[in-house]
Structures are given as C-alpha cells and as structure tokens.
C-alpha cells in the first residue's frame, strides 16, 4: 500500500503517542528527578513518558511501512456538537440552573444526530427534563437550582 500520511492509521497513532510522550517528558522536567533510592516526583513520569515516546516511534514507523488506513469516516460533526453540548451544560448549570442547562444540552446534542425534528426534540427535552428533575433533585436530593432565580 502506498503511504498517505493523511489517512494512515498508525502514522497518526504514533504521532499521538509521541505528542503525549514528549509533552509529558517536557512538563516532568520541572519536577525533581531524585534517584532510584529516593525517587523524586519527576522520576516515574519521566520514565513513563520515555517509554511512551519509544512506543510512539515504533508505531509511527510501522504505520509508514504498512500504510494501513483509518477505517470508516470521521464523525467530526457529532463530536463537535456533543462536546459543545456537554461544555454548555456545565457552563449554564453553574450560572442559570439545571433546567436551562438541560434544554440547551438536548437541543445542541440533537443537532449532532442525523435527523433533527424540532417537535420531537422539544417533546424529548420536556419529558427527560421532568424525569431528571424528579430523579436527581427530588429523588436523590441533589441541591441544584432549577432556574436562575
């Protein structure tokens, strides 16, 4: 197979490991290394990061050689909507209470799906929000404000 860096599975896998390894090693340089007898807080992370870098190199090279491609399609759109919906939930929950947070979360995450019918999502939001308030706030007694007042 021809090497195509854009779709090569192990090339990217290796880079991911190298990224984590180097970043971990670099950050751990700030922590005292110590010695095997008296390990500093930098000892274990630096050893681990070094091992991860080694794995990263191996996997990258293997990827360049084998040329195996990533299977299927990348779901960037659902990933973006779902991530944003979770972040918004947290942000709104802190400021405006649980109900607005749930409403925003349901609508934003539903946009990440394949079919978005406003009416359906609205019914689902109402039903599940009532359920959530009943279970979490009244059932489990979690101390959340429902709205911003």
């Amino acid at each position, binding site marked *: 197979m021809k090497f195509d860096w854009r779709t090569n599975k192990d090339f990217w896998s290796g880079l991911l490991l190298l990224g984590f390894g180097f970043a971990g090693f670099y950050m751990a340089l700030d922590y005292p290394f110590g010695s095997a007898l008296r390990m500093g807080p930098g000892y274990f992370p630096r050893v681990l990061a070094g091992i991860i870098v080694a794995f990263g190199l191996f996997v990258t090279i293997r990827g360049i050689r084998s040329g195996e491609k990533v299977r299927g399609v990348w779901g960037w759109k659902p990933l973006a909507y*779902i*991530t944003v919906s979770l972040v918004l939930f947290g942000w709104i929950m802190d400021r405006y209470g649980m109900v607005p947070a749930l409403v925003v979360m349901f609508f934003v995450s539903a946009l990440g799906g394949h079919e978005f019918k406003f009416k359906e999502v609205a019914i689902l939001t109402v039903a599940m929000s009532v359920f959530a308030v009943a279970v979490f706030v009244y059932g489990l007694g979690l101390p959340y404000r429902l709205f911003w007042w």
Partner: protein
Amino acid sequence: MEIFSNLIFGFSVALSLQNLLYCFIGVFVGTAIGVLPGIGPLVTIAMLLPITFNLPPIPALIMLAGIYYGSQYGGSTTAILVNLPGETASVVTCIDGYQMARQGLAGPALAIAAMASFFAGCVGTLLIAVLGPPLAEWALKFGAPEYFALMLMALIAAACLAHGDMVKSLAMVFLGLLLGIVGTDVNSGMARFSFGIPELTDGVGFTVVAVGLFAVSEIVKNLETAEQQAVFTKDIKNLMPTLKDLKVSSMAILRGTAVGAFFGTLPGTGPSISSFASYMVEKKWAKDPSRFGKGAIEGVAGPEAANNAAAQTAFIPTLTLGIPGSATMALMLGALTIQGIAPGPQVMTSKPDLFWGLIASMWIGNALLVILNLPLVGLWVKLLKIPYRFLFPSILMFCAVGNYSVNNSAMDLYLVGVFGILGYVLVKLEFEAAPLILGYVLGPLMEENLRRALLISRGDPTVFFTRPISLAFMTASILILITMILPAMRRKKEDVYSGG
C-alpha cells in the same frame, strides 16, 4: 464451615430491605439500558456510576454490581434478537444466537442464555466465597515489590490478551499510568501535570475519564453513519427449549463456566476473552462443527456461561487484591475508592459486611435476572425499538448531570469534553481504551509501590527478582510478553477473537 457462616452473614446484609431494593433497581435499570442497542455494560456503568456516589457504600456497590450483570444480560438479549453486540463479549452470542432467532427459536435461545448465565453466576459467586478469603490472606503478606510485580503482570496480561493490537494496547497502559499521575504527589506535595487548574490538583476525576472515554466516544462513533434501523426477527412465541436442547446445552454450560471462571480469576483478563475461548472449545468439542454459525444452541450456551462466570469471578482479584482485571472492574474499583474504601486484601476483614453482602447480593441479583427477564422479554423488545436519536441525548443527560454531581463543578464537564474527544480519536485509531483505564486506576498505586520497593532495597532494582513471589509475577509477565510476541501464539489469539 466458615464459608457458610460467611455466606449467611452476607445474605443477612443483602436481604435487608434497602439493599434488596438497590439490588433490584440495579439489575432492572442495568438490563433496561443494556438492552438498548449500541449501549454496552461499560457505557451503562460509566453513565450511572456518578449517580451511585450519592448512596452509602454498600447499597452503591450492590447497585453497581447489579447494573453490571444486568447490562451484560441485556446485551445478550440484544445480541440474540437484533444481532447488535453491545460489547466484545456478546459478539460471540450474536453468531449463533441471531441465527437461532431467525429460525424462530429466539425464545429458547434467550431461555438458554438466561439459564447459562444463572448457573455460571451461582458457580462464580461460590468461587468468590471459597477463593476470596485464602487469597486475601495470602495477599496480606505482600510487600511493595510483590504488589508492584503483580500490578505489572495484570497490566501486561490485560494489554496482551485483550482484543486488538498488542503494541498499541501496551502503549495505552503507559499512557494510562501517566494519566494517573495527574494531581498532587503524595510524597512531595507537588502538583504534577495540573496545568495550573486547581481542580486538577486532586487528579483527573475518575468518572470524567470513564464517561469521556467510554460513553461520549461510543455515542459519537454510533453517530458517524446514518442510523440503522434494527432488523427484527420473528415474534417470540415459545420460550422453552426442547429436552434435546437442554441436554446438549448442559455440558456446554459446564464447560463454559469452567473456561469463564479460569479467565475471570486471572488478573488482567475478563469476560470477552472467555466467551471467545468458550466458543472455540464448543466448536472443537462438537461432533458436527459445521452447525456452528447456523444456530447451534451450544454456541449460545457455552459463551453465555463463560461470559457470566468470568464477570463474577473477575471480582476475585478486584476485591481481594485490589487489582482489576477488566475495564468494568476498574470502574468498580474506582467506585470503591471514591466511597472511601481502599481496595485490597484488608477489605474483607475491615469491611466484612461490604464484602459478603456484595457476594450474596450477586447471587440474589442473578436469581432476579432469571425471574425478571423471561417474563419481561416483551418489554425489552419494545425498548429495542426506540430510535437512537432519542437515546443518545438521554444518555448524555445522565452523563452530564451525574458528572456534575460528583464535585458540583462545571470543570468536570469541560474535562469530559476533552476526554470525549480523546476517546473518540483513540477509537478511530484503533487503540483500546480498556488498558488505558486500568493503567489510570493503578498508576498512583504502582508509583507508590515502586518507590517503597526501591527504598527498602536501597535503590537496587534486582529486588523484584530476588523475592520469590515477586519473581514469580515478574517471570509470568515476561512469559506473557514473549509468548505473545511469537507469531504462532499471536495467530492463535486472532483465531480466538475471530470465532476460531
């Protein structure tokens, strides 16, 4: 007989009204969510985990255990009825179970799966009661070098025997260990990898990692392509298997239970390899192997028994040694820790009500499964018809509210987002997340024991090879690595996972 008095004590704990109720809720909710297509036990536990933190330790653990085997059982139902495995372990059940369902034998397939699970569950529970105490007593003698070597062996076994690429799984173990370091170092008080975020000085929240890596990534993966409407098999009419079915299955159940109990007890291996291995055993044992893949009832009975036996016995290393064998057990261990219980051999003596109560509740839970599931098959079928576009926002809701409730902080939700992205990228690049979470759970313990071991040996690393128990674990780790590097063994593992 000490076992019996222990078990009776356990039942007295588990049969209290409160614990019985949580056991029932766990089993019921676990099955209901596990039945939903595309939602395996890991996702189910990950999404419900934070909610259980609001309960006292014993009911929380009992409920989690119920969710665990409930969702596993629910997963088999889905596998048989619509050919959609929720996790690797039920891939095997799909092969012959779905074929049986297509021939109008969905009822007997479900009934056999339930019987196999119940039988294996009973044996598994008994094994925990018998093997747990001596194992814990033995483990109390472990010093730091032994613990370090044992954890190393468990991690290597988990990475090598799991589904997927061994090299990448090993890399995931190390990445998990590194992730486990995030937070304040106990010895020096230094905050490591905290990026200046105050919330991270306590480490990355356990539920954050679990939900991000397992639930969020799974949802996104399911949303990649347009929704597939589940293809239904004919209606379920008759539930009872024929006498011939029972006869053929009973031996398969026994063999499956043995295979599952073996793999479940080993640290580092779990249900998925046992169900594949059991399928291979059944195929080898059968007089006419060509029936397999065309609806052989042994192909359902054996793996289902193995799956469940392993699911139960996996609690042995988790509860007695504090070493989880699979990602689900890592979640259980994390739940214990968050409840303020340090997992390890001392749990049995310091918290006998928790240990024995949990074991007794497992038996009760397994019995509940049989009683509940066959009459409720109609309900499960209805649940199966819910389209995914209603399901995934609802799952997210549980994940979001649950995670928020752990620390009442939005930061955890932002981190779930980060781990969701990481989890999805890992899935696409075909990294296994299970070794990562095992490494993450064991990371801090491993560093601590490595430190202590080298401190008592005055910095001499040969300490791991001069003490007999530690030497045995180290040798086993090296042997596992060597055998898995050999091409012949690697091919054998691939055979097992392809249904041999």
